[in-house]
């Protein structure tokens, strides 16, 4: 299972990277970025997965004494939780800038923005 | 007793997922978007409800949570398909050639 998730994550990163590099529309570049973001999260969670174990939440079916033998690694999950929240923050920022760019120049095509090109 | 309940639960789940399959089939076969909404979202709602009922038979202690999910879906799914159908009608989505009458378009035409 971990291998499937790892492979999917890697493929998603590659697809997102390809989309971000080849699309000319700024909004589509941001969409590709979020696809790659999902892929990275998937890879990190997959690394923490251990075969045949269960979620790190104790309840009636998982007493505290057995926890160490039956749970998967909780640290990558905590990391990814943070990564997702920060990811949406970054996306919101990029979208706000895209809106502002559209407002000033009326276009979302990256080829129309040549001020920083040399 | 428990074994009988288990079998009933399993059969309910199979019936529910069969409705899911019919929904998917309808989604592929139907000719226009309104008929696809009809076949797709409604059959799958009943399918999910039956599956939840089946799981409730297998695990009676989860009943409250499953009831809540079912209740929630019973209210949200028709609402979303109505809003979607209305949006499709407003943007003038094509209707299948077999469609005989469209009273809504007629009435909207009268007003404008």
């Amino acid at each position, binding site marked *: 299972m971990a291998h499937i998730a790892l492979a999917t994550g890697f493929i998603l990163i590659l697809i997102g990277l390809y989309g971000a590099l080849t699309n000319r529309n700024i909004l589509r570049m941001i969409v590709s970025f979020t696809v790659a973001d999902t892929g990275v999260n998937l890879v990190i969670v997959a690394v923490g997965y251990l075969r045949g174990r269960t979620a790190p939440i104790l309840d009636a079916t998982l007493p505290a004494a057995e926890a160490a033998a039956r749970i998967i690694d909780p640290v990558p999950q905590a990391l990814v939780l943070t990564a997702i929240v920060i990811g949406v923050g970054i996306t919101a920022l990029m979208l706000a800038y895209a809106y502002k760019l559209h407002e000033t120049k009326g276009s979302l095509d990256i080829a129309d923005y040549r001020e920083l090109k040399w | 007793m428990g074994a009988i309940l288990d079998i009933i639960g399993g059969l309910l789940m199979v019936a529910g997922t069969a409705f899911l399959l*019919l929904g998917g089939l309808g989604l592929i076969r139907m000719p226009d978007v309104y008929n696809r909404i009809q076949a797709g979202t409604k*059959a799958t709602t009943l399918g999910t409800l039956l599956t939840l009922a089946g799981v409730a038979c297998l695990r009676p202690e989860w009943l*409250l949570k499953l009831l809540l999910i079912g209740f929630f879906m019973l209210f949200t799914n028709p609402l979303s398909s109505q809003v979607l159908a*209305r949006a499709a009608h407003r943007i003038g989505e094509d209707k299948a050639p077999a469609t005989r*009458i469209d009273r*809504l378009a007629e*009435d909207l035409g009268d007003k404008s």
Partner: protein
Amino acid sequence: MMRRLRDSLVLFATLLLFWVMLMGSLAADTLIVGVMASLVIALLFPDGLSFFTEFRATPRAFLAGFLYYGYFLKELVKSNLTLAAIVVSPSLPIDPGIVKVRTRLKSRMGRLMLANSITLTPGTLTVELEGEWLYVHWVRMESADIDAATARIVAGFEHYLEVMYG
């Protein structure tokens, strides 16, 4: 004034019920938090509706409620089977159309429930609700006439909902 107070109280009670179902326990600590949360939300949203807001709360209405659910489930299964037969048959025997039907219901919850019920029974799909008119997409149209279509689609549900919500 009284009416709004009553609406808020009903909303509070429904939210508390929802909370107890979510938590699945009646312990003192969950009830304290639940009462606090439900109270704050009910006060913040005086225009919030709940499932029972315009419910009439007479014995007859409760009876109608039970019968309504029985009828609804029967219709749900029956019409799903009909639609299944349509989808499976190779010739795809559909005859769609958008018809106009009339409803007598006045209360908001009753109208919402009516539209939802019509939508959930496959074969019919509410497209628009405006005043007393409902526009319904019908997969296998039996009649384009307003009264005949009303009798066929609306009357069954309306019969019970009228007693429940008015």
